[in-house]
């Protein structure tokens, strides 16, 4: 592929149906997962709210968006899933949506056959009955997936996102991809103390565990790549949601907070920083929509669209969260104010599924801008 060709004319807007879905998800999250609730649940050591997950996954039907109807899903696409993820980013509610309903679901979609075991598991995920996660470090970039298929089922994998919430682990090995029940013998899921309080990480230890083989090494590698590509692509929408919340709250706060007998938001040095952030958020939206649309269309442009979106949106989310903390002054440094939840999410997201630099390397390869 050359840099000039663009295989697919993208639709970068939101459809009416997508806006309806957004409203449904947003009101659910406003009701069940506002910032004080998120903070309280994190401190109570029960980060995941099962009732919230049930409402989101099966009530709204969000878990099955990527799954065709004949396989038990909603038959929608990455465009709709991206809208759900934007809202999840805006609320930083802990929910295994990106990891299970997107990444694990995409892996299984690549492997599903008429009579294979992947189909049944997929239907369970789509219905919100089960949660599955790919047993790879959260930092794994799509370009590294082939390298992840090594070793045996006996292994320890650290930094697996949402493993604590999972019923099933999808474990890549040298012989292929296995589905391993987390409740089974020889499976340990050890919670880790994570930087991002709202997306729990765990170390997964398998010793003598058994699993169902879903695919041999070749197809497994392609499936894992597909899963990670979708994960990285839709993570951009989460980063957009995080950045939007940060900007909106910062504007709201600085309009109200008075110092020197003026709203602090009337100081030009602050106004310009927020205006700059607005421009970044607007641009991040175009990049994130482009990635979601390219994934939805199965476009050959998708790897580039995803790499561009990740390289751009990671930085925007971190910048927005850092500005949010700074422009809130002392309050921004307190545990009570939710700004830190967004900063932690944004910073962790900038590593998840590959850093911005890793994605820029991918861009270089895809558009033939070779390194020296």
């Amino acid at each position, binding site marked *: 592929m050359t840099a000039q060709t663009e295989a697919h004319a993208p639709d970068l807007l939101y459809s009416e149906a997508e806006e309806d879905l957004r409203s449904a998800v947003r009101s659910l999250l406003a009701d069940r997962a506002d910032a004080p609730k998120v903070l309280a649940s994190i401190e109570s050591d029960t980060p995941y709210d099962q009732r919230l997950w049930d409402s989101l996954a099966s009530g709204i039907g969000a878990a099955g968006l990527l799954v065709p109807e004949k396989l038990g899903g909603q038959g929608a696409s990455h465009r709709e899933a991206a809208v759900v993820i934007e809202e999840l980013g805006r609320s930083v509610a802990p929910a295994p949506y990106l990891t299970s309903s997107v990444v694990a679901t995409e892996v299984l979609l690549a492997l599903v056959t008429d009579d294979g075991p992947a189909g049944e598991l997929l239907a369970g995920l789509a219905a919100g009955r089960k949660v599955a996660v790919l047993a790879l470090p959260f930092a794994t970039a799509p370009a590294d997936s082939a390298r992840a298929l090594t070793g045996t089922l006996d292994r320890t994998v650290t930094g697996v996102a949402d493993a604590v919430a999972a019923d099933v682990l999808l474990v890549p090995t040298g012989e292929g991809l296995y589905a391993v029940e987390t409740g089974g013998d020889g499976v340990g899921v050890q919670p880790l103390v994570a930087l991002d309080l709202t997306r729990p990480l765990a170390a997964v230890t398998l010793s003598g565990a058994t699993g169902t083989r879903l695919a041999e090494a070749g197809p497994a590698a392609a499936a894992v790549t597909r899963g990670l590509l979708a994960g990285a692509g839709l993570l951009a929408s989460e980063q957009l949601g995080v950045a939007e919340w940060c900007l909106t709250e910062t*504007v709201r706060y600085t309009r109200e907070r008075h110092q020197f007998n003026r709203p602090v*938001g009337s100081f030009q040095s602050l106004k310009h920083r927020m205006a700059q952030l607005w421009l970044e958020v607007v641009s991040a939206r175009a990049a994130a*929509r482009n990635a979601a649309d390219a994934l939805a269309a199965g476009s050959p442009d998708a790897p580039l669209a995803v790499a561009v979106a990740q*390289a*751009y949106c990671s930085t925007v989310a971190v910048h927005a969260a850092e500005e949010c903390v700074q422009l809130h002054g002392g309050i921004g440094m307190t545990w009570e104010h939710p700004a830190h939840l967004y900063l932690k999410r944004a910073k962790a997201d900038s590593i998840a599924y590959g850093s911005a630099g890793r994605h820029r390397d991918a861009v270089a390869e895809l558009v033939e*801008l070779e390194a020296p």
Partner: protein
Amino acid sequence: MSATIDAQQVRRLARELLAAHPPATTGRTAFLEARFDAGLAWVHYPVGLGGLDAPRSLQPVVDAELAAAGAPDNDPRRIGIGLGMAAPTILGFGTDEQKKRFLRPLWVGEEVWCQLFSEPGAGSDLAALATRAVRDEDGSGDWVVDGQKVWTSSAHVARWAILIARTDPDVPKHRGISYFICDMTDPGVEVRPLRQITGEAEFNEVFLTGVRIPDSRRLGPVGDGWKVAQTTLMNERVSIGGARIPREGGMIGTVAKTWREQPALRTHDLHRRLLTLWVEAEVARLTGERLRQQLVAGQPGPEGSGMKLAFARLNQEISGLEVELLGDEGLLYSDWTLRRPELVDFTGRDAGYRYLRSKGNSIEGGTSEVLLNIVAERVLGLPVEPRNDKDAAWKDLAR
């Protein structure tokens, strides 16, 4: 009526135009005049004024059809101020007579326009302008204009100018301004080249001494010129094309090409910066594309004000990188002789020129600082600056 016109119909009209005036045998001006008369100049303009009252989104259909047939175009880069600023203002505020007189030669490119807005003492604070227009006492109703304008692009090739001048110094500055169409060939109009950072003189100083402007060339009511100027300025900032820009379509394409063709120039530091800018340029392209889709879908968003900011910064960073990438060659400059170009041609010149000229991108048409103020106040709703110039009469303000 607009509701009944669709893509198929404009395509048919374009084909009829091509059949009646084959580009191969028709002169450039004659073809463009026929195109204007067929309503295919700017399809969203009224019938009789170069348009069809059709949706703006049909313009690309016409453009593509005509371009494919090798039809001549009206060189939009050369007549950018006329097309982008004078025309929408005349359409919005002009009398029928003014519209009939000015729009056709403007669009055809026979008459070039310039913008006499900025003054030595009034740039960002444009409403502070001091050029005076006084009604002649001789009963003609003519206005007599005295003052100095500056940084006027294309004044040396322009036939007409949009001009704002103060008609009442005793009221607050925004209220005492009127808007005129100035004949650049009239006695008392003196254009002097103003050499710029690139060595050439793309803009000018314009001295106006006792210039007589008939009242029939006023646009909008006396004293309401600020409102008219707002339309001009908004169109200036949002003048965003209907055409889709291809990937690597802007200045990044030039740099990427050099990178691919000259491996010897590559370093790790330049690679890192090139990729960051490549991604940013691609995202800016997508953001522009999203804005275009919003406009076509009839939901104009505030993104337009942001695009100028983004492109200014990107052009500057990319052209800066390009000079460094070229190394030895980057140390050279094509030509410092004072030239008076008809248009700004970024891509046709060398890297040093691009680097220097792009510095104007964050100044011309409103500085980036002023645009950030606009985004902050009008898009984000942040409090406006405390001001002490709103209620005082213009003549009492510090200058």
